[in-house]
């Protein structure tokens, strides 16, 4: 059965690689770190598209491994056909020499990276041993869904009964679909599957952040970005909770990485499709994903239309929408066909505005306190200060202020939207905030590091005039 599990992983990764290679063909003299970024984006594509094939399988022959494998194989064959069609002769390009990086700095930071990632993985292993089923939301929401998908066969839709409203059936199922899929391929349930998924997401986020910053800036800054993330205690601890927040953080980061690479002129249209794919997958991963998608499309739309004109900007936006289309389609089926109720959205827009305007000052104060606490506790304060000092001493690349500004606007719009949600949430807003503010801020943290480190000026990290 391990063989089938490996086969499933290989098929997902191969599909992701073919899609990523079609959308982002690299020149023959590509840099190794560019290839690494493409592999990591391919893993994101493979992970997200595996949930689509599993969702299709649930509607055809749930419980039948052959049916699932056939759908996966057809998806892989389609990706291979598309890749074949898109093959063009590759042209070499001049590589940019990396300036301002001493070998000693690289070696020292590489050693720190090795020690830090080992410590994070050991810590995660201990937490998994202590809590193999994850934190409360995992058995109540995420892994419970996976059990319905895996154990339920044709009765998996029993999860939508009103008696299970407390299990949040409206939460999108990207993560539980993947867990159920691996259980199906593995031939049985194991608590290790969702637990190791959390660990894999930890590695993917740190690696994508590091390699993307290294590609767009320098190797040293890539190492520093990954180190800044690994120093976040919440990052390691929460990965073993088996929630979908790490997945959201990965998809938000992947969206920005693809947008930044497209902005840097590395295979423009395809990368906008990849950015749309990741943003669409975020909608399929968590309800906050719809918020992120809306903020991203709006802000990127304004940025592209104002910077490259209506024709090119419109094409970029259309490419993003095309990438997100499969996920928007399955999300529409999920919300309209199965379960669309959400206690946050039960009221009309006008009612929400009335509630927000009439909210007592105490709620504003409580939200402000929670946000301030989350900003100062999710990232380590010393690291936050060190990153600020590094950025202030270096300054930002003027040519990248458009991307940096758009990214900043998206992140601020997300925080503002969270603020409105807490303001208008039914029930006890304090309890909702206690349960979710840190997680919401964590989703934005890897992207914040990326936007900061990838857009800094190329300031040599060595003595001026030295070699």
């Amino acid at each position, binding site marked *: 059965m391990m063989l089938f599990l490996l086969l499933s992983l290989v098929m997902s990764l191969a599909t992701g690689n073919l899609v990523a290679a079609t959308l982002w063909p690299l020149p023959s003299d590509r840099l190794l770190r560019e290839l690494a970024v493409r592999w990591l984006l391919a893993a994101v594509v493979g992970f997200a598209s595996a949930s689509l094939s599993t969702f299709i399988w649930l509607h055809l022959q749930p419980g039948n491994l052959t049916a699932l494998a056939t759908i996966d194989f057809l998806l892989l064959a389609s990706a291979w056909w598309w890749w074949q069609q898109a093959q063009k002769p590759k042209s070499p390009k001049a590589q940019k020499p990396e300036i301002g990086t001493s070998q000693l*700095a690289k070696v*020292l*930071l590489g050693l*720190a*990276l090795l*020690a*830090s990632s080992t*410590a994070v993985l*050991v*810590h995660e292993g*201990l*937490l998994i041993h*202590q*809590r*193999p*089923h994850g934190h*409360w*939301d995992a*058995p*109540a929401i995420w892994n*419970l869904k996976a*059990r*319905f998908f895996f*154990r*339920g*066969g044709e*009765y*998996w839709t*029993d*999860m939508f*009964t009103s*008696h*299970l409203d*407390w*299990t949040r059936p409206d939460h999108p199922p990207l993560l539980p679909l993947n867990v159920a899929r691996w259980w199906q391929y593995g031939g049985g349930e194991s*608590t290790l599957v969702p637990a190791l998924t959390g660990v894999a997401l930890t590695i993917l986020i740190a690696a994508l952040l590091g390699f993307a910053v290294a590609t767009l800036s320098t190797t*040293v800054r890539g190492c*520093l970005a990954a*180190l*800044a993330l*690994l*120093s*976040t*205690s919440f990052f*390691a601890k929460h990965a073993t909770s088996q929630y979908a927040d790490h997945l959201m953080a990965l998809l938000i980061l992947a969206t920005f990485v693809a947008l930044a690479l497209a902005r840097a002129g590395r295979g423009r249209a395809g990368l906008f499709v990849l950015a749309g794919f990741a943003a669409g997958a975020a909608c399929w991963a968590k309800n906050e994903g719809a918020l992120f998608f809306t903020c991203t499309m709006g802000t990127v739309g304004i940025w592209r239309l104002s910077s490259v004109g209506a024709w090119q900007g419109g094409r970029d936006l259309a490419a993003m929408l095309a990438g997100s289309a499969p996920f928007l389609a399955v999300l529409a089926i999920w919300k309209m066909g199965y379960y669309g109720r959400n206690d946050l959205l039960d009221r009309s827009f006008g009612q929400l505005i009335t509630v927000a305007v009439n909210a007592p000052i105490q709620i504003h104060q409580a939200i402000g306190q929670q946000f301030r606490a989350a900003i100062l506790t999710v990232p*380590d304060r*010393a*690291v936050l*200060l*060190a990153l600020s*000092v*590094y950025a202030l*001493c*270096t300054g930002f690349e003027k040519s990248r202020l458009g991307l940096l500004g758009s990214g900043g606007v998206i992140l601020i719009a997300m925080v503002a939207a969270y603020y409105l949600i807490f303001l208008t949430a039914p029930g006890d807003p304090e309890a909702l905030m206690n349960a979710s503010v840190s997680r919401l801020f964590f989703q934005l943290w890897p992207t914040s590091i990326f936007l900061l480190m990838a857009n800094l000026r190329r*300031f*040599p*990290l*060595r*003595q*001026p005039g030295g070699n």
Partner: protein
Amino acid sequence: MNLNPTIRLTYIRHWMCVLAAAVIAAMAVGVPAVDILGYFRVRQPPLPDQLSRLERQLAALRQNLPEHGAIGYVGRHPAIGGYGRPFTQLQYVLAPLVVEEHTDHLFVVGLFTDPSDLEAMIHNGEFELIATYDPSWSLLKRRQP
């Protein structure tokens, strides 16, 4: 050493960057290391994994229940709110069965921390006891009229 102000400023910026990088690297190694030490330094042993224990206790219960559909639940639970309640844990263990918090079903699973509650329910004549499971769980079946 006399340096003009521009070069001096560049030196300061350079060493500030080096210092910031050193702090980030030290924290990246230090924070997870402290977390690991904290894990072992906790004086009390870590909480037993409740769900794994419950899954072991109720493994036989699942075999006595239908593969899908809905069952009832009755029980007094300790003062634990939210997802820590035994009812929510039972739903996780028994999925894809839907567990409903009332007794209007053929099968009812009960958590009877007080044995007199179970006796009262059986003596009522509406249910018969099918099996009990360690420590306080029982499976009851509605008597056919």
